[in-house]
């Protein structure tokens, strides 16, 4: 035994061995996953099992990954037993709660000696109030985290609390390992290196301490109403023989002609929720349908759905290297949010010679006279079709693409209001600038 005389860790190892013997498991279908700390020295005591010694606190997460992969990608039936201390439970609490919530089929043996032993007896989140450690010499002034309550809060399937010296520990561990779902056994023990000398403890006092804290021993939670995660998962996501196809997407390139001799950089800007990015995607898709190279990128404030929405689309008859648009060939503005953003970015100042600016009529006054083509996009179409209308007008004015390409790209969007959007595009082709 790699443990100090009287340390509970050795006792737990014996009880685990007893439990495995009792269950008669195939050793090669059992993994022992250990955490950092004295408890992590246990691996060589189980030479017949697979052993995985992990990093501090993360043992439960590594074990969960192996269990899920086994149950869902291979033959299933793997038993994974995690051994960690109260320190590992403190730093790795999230992994424990998540495994309990998911009801991952694994067993955690939490060796709770109420302090970090390997590093010199510091207090953990599981150190009881009044308990002396090297960092709480006068006694811990915080209450201990109650793992039973934690497990209840996670709808945990199985929870037991025992002393390392309890005769029935082996049977309880066996029950936990057999349990189909997440099982946690908290084992109260003494660290003879630090806990005992600092607190004048012995086994009897430990039991009394647990009682004083209101910690009851034995199997405290055993729920049969929850199925293990892998069973729920498989029911919801059945294994399919063939790989699923990529998500549906629009028709492929080529059926339409284009009249583009060099790259065309377009900036579309408006307000969040008004389908600016959809309009840009339609332009990009129309370009693809016309055999053009194209890139599309979207920008918005840190929070999606508020303020401006802006997209850049670059179309080109030759492959596109640099994806940015330094001097836009066209700027389409359909709301004040979009105008503000574009002014901030300086797109209008950087507009290419002969560049085209199409704006909603409501913005005409905010731009130098004669600079922009002002069109009643919002009034004639609708707020959420204005950007799409601007794209249609761009195509119409430049003659870069065929009308049919834009309509086909709109059709490819699908969805409930595809018909309305198509009508908006058709209407936009016929829109004329507002009277000067």
């Amino acid at each position, binding site marked *: 035994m790699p443990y100090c005389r009287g340390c509970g860790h050795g006792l737990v190892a014996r009880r685990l061995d007893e439990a495995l013997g009792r269950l008669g498991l195939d050793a*090669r279908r059992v993994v022992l996953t250990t955490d950092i700390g004295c408890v992590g*020295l246990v*691996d*060589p005591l189980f*030479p*017949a099992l*697979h*052993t*995985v*010694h*992990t*990093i501090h606190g*993360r043992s439960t*997460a*590594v*074990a*969960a*990954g*192996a*269990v*899920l*992969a*086994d149950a*869902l*990608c*291979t033959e299933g039936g*793997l038993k994974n037993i995690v051994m960690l201390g109260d320190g590992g439970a403190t730093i790795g609490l999230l992994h424990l*709660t*998540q495994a309990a919530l998911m009801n991952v089929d694994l067993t955690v043996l939490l060796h709770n000696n109420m302090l970090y032993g390997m590093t010199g007896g510091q207090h953990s989140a599981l150190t009881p109030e009044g308990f002396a450690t090297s960092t709480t010499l006068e006694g811990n002034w915080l209450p201990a985290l109650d793992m039973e309550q934690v497990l209840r809060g996670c709808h945990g399937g199985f929870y037991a609390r025992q002393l390392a010296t309890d005769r029935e520990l082996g049977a309880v561990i066996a029950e936990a390992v057999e349990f189909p779902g997440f099982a946690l056994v908290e084992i109260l023990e003494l660290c003879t290196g630090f806990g005992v000398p600092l607190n004048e403890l012995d086994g009897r006092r430990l039991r009394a301490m647990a009682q004083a804290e209101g910690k009851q021993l034995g199997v405290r939670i055993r729920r049969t109403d929850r199925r293990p995660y892998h069973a729920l*998962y*498989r029911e*919801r*996501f*059945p*294994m*399919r023989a063939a790989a699923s196809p*990529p*998500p549906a997407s*629009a028709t492929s*390139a*080529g059926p339409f002609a284009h009249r583009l001799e060099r790259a065309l950089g377009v900036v579309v800007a408006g307000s969040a929720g008004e389908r600016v990015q959809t309009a840009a*995607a339609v332009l990009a*898709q129309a*370009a*693809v349908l016309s*055999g*053009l*190279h*194209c*890139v*599309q*990128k*979207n920008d*918005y404030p*840190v929070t999606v759905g508020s303020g401006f929405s802006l997209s850049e689309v670059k179309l080109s008859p030759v492959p*596109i*290297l*640099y*994806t*940015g648009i330094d001097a836009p060939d066209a700027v389409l503005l359909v709301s004040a949010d979009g105008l503000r953003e574009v002014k901030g970015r300086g797109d209008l100042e950087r507009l290419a010679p002969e560049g085209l600016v199409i704006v909603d009529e409501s913005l005409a006054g905010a731009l130098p006279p004669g600079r922009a083509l002002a069109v009643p996009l919002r009034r004639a179409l609708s707020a959420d079709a204005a950007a799409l209308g601007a794209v249609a007008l761009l195509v119409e004015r430049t003659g870069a693409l065929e009308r049919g390409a834009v309509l086909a790209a709109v059709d490819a969007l699908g969805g409930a209001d595809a018909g309305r959007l198509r009508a908006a595009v058709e209407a936009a082709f016929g829109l004329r600038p507002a009277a000067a």
Partner: protein
Amino acid sequence: MIAGAEVRLRSGNQMVVEGALRAGCRFFSGYPITPASEIYREMTQRLQGRGDVAVGAPDEISALCYCIGASQRGVKAMTATSGPGWALMIEAFQYALMAETPVVVVVVQRLGPSTGGATQGAQGDVLLAGFATSGGYTVPVFAPSTPAECFALTVHAFNWSEALRTPVVLLSDKEVAMTYEAVDLGALPDVPVWTRRPASGDGYRAVAFTTPDEVPPFAPLGGPRKVTLTGSAHNKDGWLRKNDPETLEVLRHLEAKVAARAADLTLVTEDLDAGADTVVVSYGITARAAREAVRAARAAGRRVSFVGLLTLFPVPAAALRAAVGGARRVVVAEENLGGLYRRVLAGALPGVELSSVNKLGGMIRPAEILEAL
């Protein structure tokens, strides 16, 4: 003209997903973070759609640990994150290296530090990826600059992770990841798929090797061969030891197996002019601006070469030295402060004048690189 029958608009993130599926990835775990979230979402839909495993994690540490456990069970696994999540993953990543566990981590860079600019691009995690491990070990890092490279390099990342039994980083960036682009899905590079060498025969020792650069054959947890793995220093049987000669041999082996294959691991794209006086070196999104700058410089009569780095680590030193040839100057273009990767190259290109084009908060423009030429 791009006129294949399967031309689609695809983002870099989406092509990472295609690459992962092509490579045989059957397990994904993720935690939401812009600009990597699209990978999480699409891997979830695609894997669940065919009954494979995609699991939402409560944090990035869990995400990588789930993947590590799955890989130790013998299933190819991947996670994706950005700089802040990568910072959390690093200890588990080091564990995977020590325990010789293949896993792929996609790091989609954004402006940092801290929450930084979640929707702003950057190339600022280059060294945090390349030097993620304690002790001087080489972390293979691939850096795509186009959707097609996202696809191909994801397959390469899995392949090398499997072949070397080591964790690999695919270092993307927001502008590569979230830009949609016309991609001919019917003309993607045909990268063969590799899988870790399986153990055979009796007397299996989980991490034993004969020559230091040999990659130990793999046996899965739960299989007939006893597996012993640890993130602590260990002997060839996988048992924790401190610093006996065999343990130090294992530690050196972890580097030797990568170093021995550096020439095959290092991928670059080149557009060379044998008489160039200047070579522009770049990677990720900036490589595209650099190519355009080189094109413009040549049109103006300059003799300039271009080298795009698809592998950042191990440093493609030999390929770079060959490409530089007699050129007197190398300009490294990258979107970060102070030229992170240029500092790495300083050691690899002795006697060459090294300069940088750097920027923060926006893509480097071809004109800015041209100016430096």
